């Protein structure tokens, strides 16, 4: 197919439109029509439940429900969402949460990967499984258990911090601590898949590079920072971007543990929770749709930004 289509485009140019069409028709004639049949269910599902829904969301974002009818109101939803201090509070919380979880979590994963890599296969599998296990448990369940761990009166976290002489804290009820508590929870349970991927990539680094570095007198630390980390950059970029996209949509923990609170402005209100709250509690579907499109914009801009940042560092 790749070869067919390239000959089709090579043999034609923009001014020779009929030839170009004939080329396409030829490629189509040679096509395996079963291909279309096989991808049809997926494409249909995709067109209905993704493409159509995105257009619907864009349309909703310009509308407002008035007396049971959707009415066109132009950019009002956007201006209202952008002027609402709650939006910016949620953005700020989400950025703090996401960057902390991704940066600290990835740092911990990198160190742990270095520590388990080059141990025996069994040891590696054992620790990787232990680190990954929390990720298979429903985040609702994890949130319920952590709510109990964070309990201000009888929670075990206060017993642990008490050993160090720290007085009892209301981890989820104190506006200064609530977001940090959610971050702590996410980092402790969340390193598994990063560690699996990082150790897999470490296996791809040629041993000769370490030998050469060693002959040059590089210390263990230098070898880690100058050989391992630079060569892991593509994997780190991937984990950074996917981690950012995933964590930026944090919702379930907030729903179960804090409902966006405590305090005002709400200390753990995130963009995902704000969208849910607007759409399904305040029944402002238009505003929620506008906010969800802004969420997408932020994710898009940041993903491109991260790619550029890492790409720039690659060229030296």
């Amino acid at each position: 197919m790749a070869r067919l289509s390239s000959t089709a485009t090579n043999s034609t140019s923009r001014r020779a439109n009929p030839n170009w069409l004939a080329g396409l028709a030829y490629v189509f004639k040679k096509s395996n029509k079963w291909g279309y049949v096989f991808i049809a269910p997926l494409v249909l599902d995709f067109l209905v439940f993704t493409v159509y829904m995105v257009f619907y969301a864009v349309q909703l974002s310009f509308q407002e429900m008035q007396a049971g009818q959707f009415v066109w109101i132009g950019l009002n939803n956007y201006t209202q969402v952008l002027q609402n201090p709650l939006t910016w509070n949620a953005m700020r919380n989400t950025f703090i949460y996401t960057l902390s979880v991704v940066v600290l979590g990835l740092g911990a994963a990198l160190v742990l990967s270095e520590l388990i890599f080059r141990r025996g296969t069994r040891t590696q599998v054992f620790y990787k499984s232990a680190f990954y296990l929390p990720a298979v448990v429903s985040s609702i369940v994890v949130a319920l258990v952590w709510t109990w761990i964070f309990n201000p009166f009888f929670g075990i976290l206060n017993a642990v911090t008490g050993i160090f002489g720290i007085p009892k804290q209301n981890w989820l009820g104190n506006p200064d601590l609530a977001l940090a508590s959610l971050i702590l929870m996410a980092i402790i349970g969340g390193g598994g898949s990063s560690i699996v991927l990082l150790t897999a990539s470490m296996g791809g680094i040629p041993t000769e590079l370490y030998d050469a570095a060693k002959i040059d007198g590089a210390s263990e630390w230098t070898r880690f920072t100058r050989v391992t980390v630079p060569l892991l950059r593509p994997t780190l970029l991937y984990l950074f971007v996917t981690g950012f996209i995933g964590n930026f949509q944090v919702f379930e923990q907030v729903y179960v543990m804090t409902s966006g609170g405590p305090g005002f402005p709400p200390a753990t209100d995130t963009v995902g929770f704000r969208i849910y709250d607007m759409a399904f509690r305040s029944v402002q579907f238009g505003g929620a749709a506008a906010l969800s499109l802004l969420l997408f914009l932020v994710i898009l801009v940041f993903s491109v930004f991260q790619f550029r940042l890492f790409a720039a560092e690659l060229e030296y």
Partner: protein
Amino acid sequence: MAQATIRPARRGRALNPQARPGNWLTILVYVILTAWAMLALFPIYWMFKNSFEPAMAFTVFPPNLLPFNPSLDNYKLLLSRTPMARWGFNTTLVSVTRTLGAIFFGALAGYAFAKLKFLGREVIFWALMSTLMIPSFITIIPQYQVVRALGWIDSYAALIVPGLTGGVWAMFLMRQFVKTLPTELIEAARIDGASEFGIFVRIILPLMKPGLAVLGIFTFMGNWNNFLWPLLVTSSINMRVLSVGMALIRGGIGEANILVMGQVMAGSTLVAIPMIVVFLVFQRYFLQGITIGAIKG
């Protein structure tokens, strides 16, 4: 793997040439790894342990690390007070159906994109791939509107139909697997007069069992733990799934009521155990799936 035995000794010497090669360093490494593993697994242990405790154990401070007075009372009370069994049935039905859908349609589309030649294949493929970054929050609001307009609220159709084909990710994962299979096999079968669908069912599917296992496990896990969509499209207590039921039990009971914390922990354990068992049994596929799912292009 020879490297595996050589490297630790080597690094020990590099850091500390005098002492015996890094024995204490190796011990330190294991201490750090084990401490972190225990930290990561502690919430699961804590849930499990507390699910067997009587109500009075929840008002002890500092709490006992080891089981205090274990019994099955929490489980009995929970099962008699909530439709946990029905939620378990709903969750299983939805997860199994959607997993089968993702395996079949994902493999079918993945095979077509990997091995069949047709006009527009690359264009369609990349159009699909480009939507992977779209947050589910965008589509979930209109999806809810459409499902409501169809009168599907509180039905299995609403829980099962949207995204039944497993979506772009399933197709992509399957395409990565099919790509590694030799094309000659397909061509030979075609010459022998096998139908295109016959080739897929009789040749491709059996060859990609490991891939199907990886996809099946991840889809099952994703659906078992899915929360927001089932929360939105169900309203009666009997149509809830486990994750939603658990979150709402907590809401109904109220945070302050510590007396029923044991039942919350028992319910959590019932939701978590099937996935933990699946993970321990299919560990290999999980670790493999993470790596394959991440390879781009």
